[in-house]
């Protein structure tokens, strides 16, 4: 929680990105304590690894300090406190922590836990649910990753390097960036 407040308050973006990496690592440790080992694995690899690297790459391509606002804004703070209050009021009706009689443990989960070693034969129940019982969802998730990759390729298609690479000339991802002439025309206007 302290780290979250520190991220909000910091103006040096590089430090904020590093703190978010530490935040992901702490979250992964909390997940391990809560018996969610697969989730902790993924969160540590993805949050503390890939997210931090990509944010640092973005920082190196843009600026590294945040602008300090002269007048502090009070409306977002009021909105946040009001929403937080309503959420807490709603959460008071939810089941208690660590309670095995909560409704989410009653209907589908006992069937998966009892039947999955027999029906699927795989000891890791998370994998059996992910790949076999809910395999269609995993197909959709893979499509999301694929779309993100295609989107980033379209947005940041590689500029041609000075050294001519015989292998790279055979692929067709935005060799001559069609936005390049427009971009060079746009930036002089902005700088005036």
């Amino acid at each position, binding site marked *: 929680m302290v780290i979250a407040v520190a991220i909000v308050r910091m103006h040096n973006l590089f430090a904020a*990105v590093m703190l978010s990496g530490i935040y992901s690592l702490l979250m992964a440790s909390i997940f391990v304590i*809560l018996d*969610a080992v697969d989730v902790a694995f993924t969160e540590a690899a993805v949050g503390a690894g890939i997210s931090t690297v990509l944010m640092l790459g973005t920082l190196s391509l843009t600026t590294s300090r*945040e602008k300090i606002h002269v007048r502090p804004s009070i409306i977002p703070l009021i909105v946040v406190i009001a929403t937080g209050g309503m959420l807490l009021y709603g959460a008071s009706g939810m089941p208690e922590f660590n309670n*095995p009689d909560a409704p989410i443990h009653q209907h589908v989960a006992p069937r*998966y836990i009892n039947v999955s070693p027999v029906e699927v034969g795989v000891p890791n129940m998370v994998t059996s649910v992910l790949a076999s019982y809910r395999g269609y969802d995993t197909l959709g998730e893979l499509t999301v990753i694929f779309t993100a990759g295609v989107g980033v390729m379209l947005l940041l298609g590689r500029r041609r390097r000075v050294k001519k690479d015989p292998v790279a000339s055979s692929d067709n991802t935005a060799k001559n960036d069609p936005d390049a002439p427009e971009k060079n025309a746009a930036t002089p206007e902005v700088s005036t």
Partner: protein
Amino acid sequence: MAWLGHFNYWIFVFLMMAGFYTVIARGNLIKKIVGLNIFQTSVFLLYITMGKVAGGTAPIVPEGGSEGVVYSNPIPHVLILTAIVVGVATTALGLALIVRINEAYGTIEEDEIQDIEESGDKKERAT
């Protein structure tokens, strides 16, 4: 109010509001993306804490069979696994968009971009 039994909800709401505040109150675009990550992680924490059973263990069947072993609920784990991966896809696309915005406008502060947009509109309406 049995607030001691609900302390995971308190933490979740605090983290969610911290991320929410970062997204709506800070002008810098990269800060917004970091705030969005905090927001997403708080939701994961909510689901995982709801899935934990007292005295349970990780949902992997041990070697000697599963007699008398209490497991934590595996279904929220599956949902959160998918959600983490979707979150990183969103972050990657958002950061790519920030790089392009920076190249087009020269800045990544929200109010400066809005000023540039408005002055561009006024110029178009004047001509």
